[in-house]
């Protein structure tokens, strides 16, 4: 039966295109005359079965769900449609094909559907925040004024803003990065370049601590810095809590980045008579500059959105302050948290708008990390 070969063959990408899977394609890449034949993965039989099942199940479920059975609600409708579609797709395929292919197509439909659910969740998360926040975010005063200039509960959206929270977030992030960047990369250099039994202990502990629940970092700083040492609830305390969060993340991803530096490069440098220090400074670190930057930026992206540590360490002020040591300091996640818990719809709208700003910050950091990590691939 030829349908077996034509309908459900894998497409040729695994052996064909060297840009997808470089590991297994070394012979195919060098020889241009030996191109694999193009196997079309899907036949018209497949597409027609798919379309027919989709439309047929939609009609059936519409009839049963909306007209005959006592159900309502679009979530239930979509769920029943998907189940009916799977059943119909399987039955129609079974008319022509062997059970093996029915199972194969069913799995493909289930897997694609699950990926669709996750994609939908991501899109709805971002989209919902943007839609709910768009009313407040397009006023310029939202960025140029602080909370103290207008009561966010009562003032119209054209007054008041989150300038203090934006700057608070940036200052806290700056403190956290200033603390955890040298410590994190220094630890990674120690674990990779110096090594030894103690380094293995450090690595085990660092890996275990990437799992530290964020609230515990805050609780530690709260009891240690604020209660025991008498530091005020301030941007500095929040920055320290964030750095406790960030440090293991940066150390771990920098460790991964440094570990893939080829040993041959190190040996070449040492063989030329360089000291170990010069080897690390001139060879190892520059080779992975992009990877290290990615590690730091991903740590920053994680830290800027952390709410729980900030919640119990920073306090919240409504005015703009640049002094992280003496005054409480608001930040974006904290502002969002306060805003959405209030019963006032205006304030909730402002919270969503602050969510857009926070998402934009994360996206910028994330995009920078992607850009840098792509450069690394290009330079090789």
């Amino acid at each position, binding site marked *: 039966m030829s349908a077996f070969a034509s309908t459900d063959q894998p497409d040729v990408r*695994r*052996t064909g*295109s060297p840009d*997808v*899977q470089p590991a*297994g394609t070394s012979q195919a890449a060098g020889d241009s005359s030996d191109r694999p034949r193009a196997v079309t993965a899907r036949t018209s039989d497949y597409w027609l079965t798919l379309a027919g099942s989709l439309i047929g199940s939609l009609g059936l479920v519409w009839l049963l769900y909306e007209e005959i059975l006592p159900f309502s609600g679009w*979530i*239930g409708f979509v769920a029943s449609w998907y189940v009916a579609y799977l059943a119909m797709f399987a039955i129609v395929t079974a008319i022509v094909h062997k059970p093996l*292919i029915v*199972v*194969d197509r069913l*799995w493909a439909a289930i*897997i*694609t559907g699950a*990926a669709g659910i*996750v994609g939908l969740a*991501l899109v*709805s998360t971002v989209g*919902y*925040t943007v839609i709910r926040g768009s009313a407040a975010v397009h006023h310029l005063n939202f960025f140029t004024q602080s909370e103290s200039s207008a009561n966010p509960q009562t003032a119209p959206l054209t007054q008041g803003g989150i300038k203090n929270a934006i700057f608070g977030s940036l200052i806290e992030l700056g403190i956290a990065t200033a603390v955890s960047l040298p*410590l994190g990369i*220094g630890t990674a250099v120690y674990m990779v*370049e*110096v090594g030894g039994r103690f380094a293995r*202990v*450090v690595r085990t502990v660092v*890996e275990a*601590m990437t*799992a530290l629940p*964020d*609230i*515990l*970092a805050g*609780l530690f700083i709260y009891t*240690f810095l604020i*209660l025991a040492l008498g530091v005020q609830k301030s941007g500095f305390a929040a920055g320290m809590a964030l750095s*406790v969060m960030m440090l293991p993340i940066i150390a771990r991803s920098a460790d991964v980045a440094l570990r893939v530096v*080829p040993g*041959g*490069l190190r040996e070449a440098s040492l063989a030329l008579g360089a*000291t*170990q*220090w010069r080897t*690390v400074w001139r060879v190892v670190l520059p080779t992975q500059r992009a990877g290290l930057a990615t590690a730091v930026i*991903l740590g920053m*992206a*994680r830290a*800027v*959105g*952390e*709410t*729980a540590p900030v919640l*119990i360490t920073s306090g919240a002020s409504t005015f703009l302050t640049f002094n992280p040591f003496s005054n409480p300091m608001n930040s974006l*996640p904290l502002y969002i*948290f306060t805003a959405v818990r209030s019963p006032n719809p205006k304030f909730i709208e402002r919270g*969503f708008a602050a*969510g857009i700003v926070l998402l934009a910050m*994360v996206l910028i950091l*994330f995009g920078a990390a*992607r850009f840098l990590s792509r450069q690394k691939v290009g330079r090789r």
Partner: protein
Amino acid sequence: MTTLIDMRPAGSAPEPDDAPRPIRRSLSLADRVFRGSTTGIGAVVLVVIAAVGVFLGLQLVPTLHHYGLHFFTEHQWNPQLNILGISAVLIGTVEVAIIAILFSFPLALLTALYISEYAPSWLRASLVAMVDLMAAIPSIIYGVWGYFLINPHALYLSRWINEYLGWIPLFHVQGGDPRAAIFTPSAYGQSPFIAGMVVSMMVIPLACAVMLGVFQQAPISEREGAYALGSTRSGMIRTVVLPFGRGGIVGGTMLALGRALGETVAVLLILSPVFDIKLRPLENGGITTASLIANYSGDATSGQLSALLAAGFVLFAMTIVVNTLAAMIVTRSRSGAQTEI
């Protein structure tokens, strides 16, 4: 009499100017400073990180001294009466985490399979970036999304489950008769079920990325071998990709479990605090360790604070155990350092 062994070939005569240069074992000053300072940094980081654990752990002593072993069996957390116990809190923590895993395990596994096996190759890099982006979205955003968008819709799912499976104690909802004349949404909303659902969205990218990593490493020769023997794509996945990626599947799920146990803000927003030991996840109310700490640390007396820290230590111990196991399973399934010139 020397103990040196002559390694040169027997015939070759020693040439006078080919003597090996003296090799000193001692490091140069710069290297000693370098090694010393990086070791110092490593030690500082170790001390800071270990201090968190030790600091939390030490609080168990005054807590147990003050509240006794009832601290682990008491279910109330009532600062006014000074009756504090963490049994309901711990059960709630595990309950939410397990619900999150029930949702996230199939979704993460199937999404990873889609990206590594089914997605068209031009789309794959963007999909991997989307998973990374999903991991980077702050938890407060997920929490707000869950509170305002998921909660009002998901309670109908809770009611539906309760309507048809309510005779099973696990799916029972007190005060929420699905056939009542007036529907009471508050009985179903803000439940551990919905909180777990939202937490699952946060841990899916974590588990998915780990699974994706191992699936993409499944050896190409074995994949091609399965196809050459006449396997369909799903057959190839079942016989090659899944067995190869078993370590990543288990490890990724446990990493997700560790994160789900410690999730704070989303749970704090969604779950309304109720300190009862009840295994009715569809019902309104519950509490987790992380949300307990976030709720009560602000105005706790010193005795209560050390009780909170002790609760934090129990949470910490749980996540450390889960994560260390996960890391062991993941590293056993694949090794990181392979690149050599």
